[in-house]
C-alpha cells in the first residue's frame, strides 16, 4: 500500500503514456518529457503562489501585524488577485531601451530557473530530467542567470539598472565559488555527479537510527551552511539583496520593468530559491529519504517537500530578522572566509574518508574544521584595530 502511494505519480505517468502504445518511440519520448515539464511547472508555480502569500503572512507575524487577510480565507487567494493585477498592468518599455534585449532578459532568467529545477530528485524514481552529470548541469545552466541579469541591466538603458546588474553579477560571481566548492566534498565522497546516486548514498542508518545524511558529519554541516548562505546570495535574498536595495538604487536591474515582466523576475527569484534549496536537500539533507526507518511509510516526495518547506521557512525567517549587509562586507566574507572554509570542507571530507568514515573520521574532520575556523576568526578579527573611519571615494 505504502509503496503504491509512494509511486503514485510514476504509475500515473506510465498509465498516461500507455495510451500512446504503438506510436513511434520518439513521440513517446516527447510526450514523456512534456508530462515531466508540465508536472514541474504545475507544482512549482503553485508553490510559488503559495509561498508568496505565506511569506507575507509569516513576515507580518514576525512584525506584529496581520498581513494579507482580505482575499479569500486567511488571505489565501491573494496570489490570484496579485496575478490578475500584474497581468492587467501597463507594460512600459523605456523609449531608449533596447527592446529585444529588454524583452528577452526576463524570459531567459525564468527559463534558467525552471531548467535548474529539472535535475532534482523529488522522490523515488521522480527525477524529471535524469542525466549523468546532474549537479554539473545545475551549475552550468544556473550560470546563465548572470548573463540574463546583465541583459536586464544593459537593455533598460538606465543607470540604476546597470549599477544594480553590476552589483548582482559581482556578488553572484563571488559566491558561486563557495557554492560550488561546498558541493565538492559530497561529490567526492559519493563519487558521482548524479543527484540520484547522491540521494542513494544517504539511505542507510548509523547505529540503526541516525540517518546517514551528510549534514550529520562535521564537513557536511559546514558545507551545508556555506552552501545555504551562498544560495541565499545567489537568489538575491535578504540580507544579501544589495542589487535591488531600494534605498540606494531603486530596484536594481529590475528598475525599468513593469507589469508581468516584473512578475516574471519575481517568479524567477523564487524558482531559483526553490532550486537551490532543493539541491541543498538533495546534497546534504538526505533528499527524499525519511529521517527514520519507521517513517518510511510516508511517501518519499512528502519528505522532500517537508524538508524543502523547512529550508524556505528559514529563508523567510532570515528576511524577517536580518538587515541588509553592506557590499564590501559581503565581498570580504565571500573571499576571506567562505572560500577558505569551503576548501577546508574538501580536506575534511578527505580526512573523514581515509579515517574510515566512522566515529574516528568524524572526530578528525571536526578537528580539521575547528582548527581552520579558529585560525580564520583570529586572522580576520578586525575588532582590535580601532581607528577613525577613512572614507574613500572613486576618483
Amino acid at each position, binding site marked *: 500500500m505504502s509503496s503504491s502511494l509512494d509511486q503514485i505519480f510514476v504509475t500515473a505517468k506510465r498509465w498516461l503514456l500507455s495510451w500512446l502504445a504503438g506510436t513511434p518511440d520518439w513521440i513517446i519520448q516527447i510526450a514523456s518529457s512534456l508530462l515531466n515539464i508540465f508536472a514541474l511547472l504545475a507544482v512549482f508555480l503553485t508553490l510559488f503562489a503559495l509561498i508568496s502569500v505565506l511569506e507575507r503572512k509569516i513576515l507580518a507575524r514576525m512584525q506584529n501585524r496581520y498581513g494579507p487577510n482580505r482575499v479569500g480565507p486567511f488571505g489565501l487567494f491573494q496570489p490570484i488577485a496579485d496575478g490578475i493585477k500584474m497581468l492587467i498592468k501597463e507594460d512600459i518599455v523605456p523609449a531608449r531601451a533596447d527592446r529585444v534585449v529588454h524583452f528577452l532578459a526576463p524570459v531567459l532568467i525564468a527559463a534558467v530557473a525552471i531548467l535548474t529545477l529539472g535535475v532534482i530528485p523529488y522522490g523515488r524514481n521522480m527525477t524529471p530530467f535524469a542525466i*549523468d552529470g546532474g549537479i554539473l548541469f545545475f551549475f*552550468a545552466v544556473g*550560470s546563465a542567470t548572470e*548573463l540574463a541579469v546583465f541583459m536586464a541591466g544593459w537593455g533598460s538603458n538606465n543607470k540604476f539598472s546597470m549599477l544594480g546588474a553590476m552589483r548582482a553579477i559581482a556578488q553572484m560571481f563571488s559566491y558561486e565559488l563557495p557554492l560550488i566548492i561546498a558541493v565538492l566534498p559530497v561529490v567526492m565522497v559519493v563519487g558521482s555527479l548524479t543527484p540520484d546516486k547522491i540521494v542513494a548514498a544517504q539511505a542507510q542508518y548509523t547505529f540503526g537510527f541516525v540517518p546517514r545524511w551528510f549534514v550529520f558529519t562535521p564537513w557536511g554541516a559546514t558545507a551545508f551552511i556555506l552552501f545555504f548562505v551562498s544560495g541565499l546570495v545567489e537568489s538575491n535574498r535578504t540580507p544579501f539583496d544589495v542589487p535591488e536595495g531600494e534605498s540606494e538604487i531603486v530596484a536594481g536591474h529590475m528598475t525599468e520593468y513593469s507589469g508581468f515582466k516584473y512578475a516574471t523576475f519575481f517568479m524567477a527569484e523564487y524558482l531559483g530559491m526553490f532550486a537551490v534549496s532543493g539541491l541543498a536537500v538533495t546534497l546534504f539533507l538526505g533528499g527524499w529519504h525519511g529521517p527514520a526507518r519507521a517513517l518510511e511509510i510516508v511517501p518519499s516526495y512528502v519528505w522532500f517537500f517537508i524538508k524543502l518547506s523547512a529550508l524556505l521557512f528559514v529563508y523567510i525567517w532570515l528576511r524577517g530578522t536580518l538587515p541588509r549587509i553592506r557590499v564590501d562586507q559581503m565581498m570580504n566574507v565571500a573571499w576571506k572566509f567562505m572560500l577558505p572554509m569551503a576548501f577546508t570542507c574538501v580536506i575534511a571530507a578527505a580526512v573523514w574518508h581515509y579515517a574510515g568514515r566512522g566515529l574516528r573520521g568524524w572526530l578528525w574532520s571536526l578537528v580539521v574544521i575547528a582548527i581552520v575556523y579558529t585560525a580564520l576568526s583570529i586572522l580576520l578579527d578586525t575588532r582590535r584595530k580601532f581607528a577613525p573611519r577613512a572614507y574613500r571615494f572613486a576618483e
Partner: protein
Amino acid sequence: MNSAAFVVIAILTLAAALATATLQKLMHAALCFAVALVGVAAFFLLLGAEFVGLVLVFVYIGAVAVLIVFTILLTRRDIGKDRGFNWGGVLVAVAVFCGLTWSILKTPSLSSVAPHIRALTVKRIGEALMTNYVWPLQCIGLLLTAALIGALILVMEERG
C-alpha cells in the same frame, strides 16, 4: 530523432553565428555569440559527451560571455553606434574555413565510418585526468592560481 535534432541545432547555431558576424550593434553580436556557444554545447550533448557540453556552457556562458559583455561595456565609448562591415574579417574567416576543411580532408587517419567508442562519462574523464594527465592538470591549476593572484595585485590599492 537525432538527425532531426542535429538539423535544428545546426540551423540555430549557424543563424546565431551569422548574427554575431553581421549585427550592427556590438552588444547584440556578443549576446548572439553566447547563443552560438550554447548551440555548440548542444552538439556535444547530442554526441553523448555530456561533460564537455556542460563544461562548455559553464565556462563560456557563465564566464567568457559575461567577460566579453563587460569588456565591451567598460572599454568602448561607441557601444550605441553602429559598426561598419568588416571585409578583412570575412577574408580571415574564409581562409580559416578553407584551411580547416583542407586539413580535415587530407588527414589520413580519419575513416569515414564512425568508430565505436565507449560513452565519455564523467568518471572516465576524472580517471584520465588523475592518472595520465595529472601533470598538465597541475600545470593548468598553477597557471590559473597565478592568474588569480595577478588579478588581485592589479586591483589592489597602492598604500602610501
